[in-house]
């Protein structure tokens, strides 16, 4: 399932799968998933939590851009602290950000596994750690690094914390509300990953999301390709099918507006992480 999904994604963004040999850039738990919130903005990569751990090149690459937290050549501050961009195979750039410093400021190329620096406080990251992100230059969009990284042996399913319907600024929490007026509603999912190593809930959307209304598919999406738009990370389907979803600055997943007419409504939500762990939930409502 995972391999088929990966192959499809790679085919869509035009990359031969054999081009990549990524490894985890740090021996640390994932604290924020792709698209999860950080200080009011969505993360275009994953955040690995920790201080003092080695940050290593996930694949071989050529240095494209490097800047420190404070650089006399520009007025622009670096909210991502010490930041390094490496150009890898097939126009895929890897980004290592929120570092306190880098190991070898003069290095022009990095072998796979080469030391980039140590994780720690650097830039505006909610916790100590660093971000690893992948940018596909061909499509001009961010790609979920999980797609290319080996599984970590996680056996915990994601948690569905809350599902709400929103219309004209009013919110109905499923489970609390049993009757709602007919109309168009946005579906808002509050879902979290449970990392195998991270102590708390991992912030950010799971890999796969499916929502059914009375058995009809409302959305089926994978958080694999994304773009920052209007302060949120918008995901795009690799296959061209499916539907665009977005994650807001608080980490909630927004699904485009749906019209519900009078009668019974059964909403079913299924979420699945990259390692195949899944959880589902359903709610019955009466539309008046």
């Amino acid at each position, binding site marked *: 399932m995972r391999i088929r999904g990966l192959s499809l994604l790679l085919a869509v963004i035009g990359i031969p799968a054999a081009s990549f040999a990524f490894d985890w850039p740090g021996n640390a738990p994932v604290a924020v998933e792709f698209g999860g919130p*950080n*200080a*009011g*903005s*969505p*993360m*275009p990569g994953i955040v690995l939590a920790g201080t003092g751990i080695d940050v290593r090149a996930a694949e071989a690459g*050529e*240095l*494209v*851009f*490097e*800047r420190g*937290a*404070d*650089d*006399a*050549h*520009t*007025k*622009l*501050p*670096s*909210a*991502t602290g010490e*930041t390094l*961009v490496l*150009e890898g195979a097939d126009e895929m*750039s890897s*980004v290592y*950000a929120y570092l306190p410093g880098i190991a070898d400021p003069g290095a*022009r190329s990095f072998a796979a596994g080469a030391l980039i620096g140590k994780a720690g*406080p*650097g*830039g*505006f*990251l*909610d916790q100590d750690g660093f971000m690893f992100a992948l*940018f596909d*230059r061909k499509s*001009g*969009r*961010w790609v979920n690094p999980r797609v290319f990284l080996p599984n970590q042996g996680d056996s915990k399913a994601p948690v569905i914390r809350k599902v709400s319907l929103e219309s004209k600024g009013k919110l109905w929490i499923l489970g609390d509300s049993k009757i709602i007026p007919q109309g168009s509603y946005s579906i808002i999912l509050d879902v979290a990953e449970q990392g195998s190593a991270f102590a708390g809930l991992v912030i950010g959307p799971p890999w796969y999301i499916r929502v059914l209304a009375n058995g009809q598919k409302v959305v089926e999406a994978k958080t694999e390709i994304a*773009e*920052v*738009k*209007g*302060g949120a990370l918008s995901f795009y389907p690799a296959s061209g099918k499916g539907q665009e979803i977005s994650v807001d600055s608080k980490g909630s997943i927004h699904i485009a507006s749906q019209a519900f007419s009078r009668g019974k409504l059964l909403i079913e939500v299924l979420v699945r992480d990259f390692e195949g762990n899944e959880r589902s939930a359903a709610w019955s409502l009466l539309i008046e």
Partner: protein
Amino acid sequence: MEEKTRVRITVAGTSIIGIVYFLLFALPLPKQLSLKPMWVSAIPQAMELGGGAAAVKGPLLSFRIGERYGYFDRNAGIAFAATRGYGISISDAGYVSWNMRPDTLQFKDPRGNLLFASSEQGYPFMDEERRFVVSSNQEGISELDNKGSILWKRDFPSLITAFASNKDLTVIGTMDGQLFAIDHHGQVSLSFAPGGSRIPCIYGCAISPDGKNIAATSGLDKQRVLVLEKRDEAYRVTWHRWTDSDFRRPVAMSFTPDGRELVFETSGGLGVYDVASRKANILFARDPVVSSAALPNRKLLLALDNDGKPSILVASYDGRGYFSFPYSADEAMLRNEGDSVFFGLRKNDTASLLRLDFVEE
């Protein structure tokens, strides 16, 4: 005897003609331009806000030398000095400092009075009188008005790597090699990808004070500097030059205050592009150039370089070096006001400001 008389008359006549010529047609010797030391002022490690403000006169000028920042006047008065915490952005219009994970952003005027506090999340910065916040993921920029309200906010496709603004436009360069100009309403008035290099990326950008010219340093292998000129309401590339530079970090570039020249970092020194003639000259300084200042009325450029043997270079726009002299400092800055040049130097715990005036003698 007659021969002697003839010689005497000839000598006397020649002398008289010479004296008359000297008196009537004398040309003044050309004046030499020199840098005249005016004052040196020690910068305290910290001076409370208002501690020196009473003694200073006239408009305040900002300085930042490494960790130290503050304001001074033209007559050696230090209005205020402080050592930065995590971040500092300062201009003559005000300053803002912040910690690594700021809850609120406090923008202050040069005398330390709070202008406003903003809860916008990100790192703030000043560009002359404009105030911006870059989002925590380095992909969005918002501009704040003088009360802290958001004027506009915009996200970009990848990391923001370059920034410039004048009073009307904001220019943004991104990691994926795109260049954007944003107006006061947050609308994109230019979207352009220079291309032509193996790897696209924008390393630096600049906009002229009148907004007619936008410049960028772009790409890797090969790198180039290009200038876009506004014609018929659209920007078009009017000049570009492939360079030998191999910058993979932010690159300094700016137009001179009169907008007639673009000064940019390039391999082996500074480049000066003349907008009118569309020609560029290279001034040989040593990489990296720490700071530079342009004196448009004298067509002079000053640069501080620091490749281990720091020196100050004074050169003309057309590339002729006038003189250079070494300086000894751990950190340095350079700025000017008219013909007055201010050097800031820090060595160990001692920091000083020097004023030198260009005078013709």
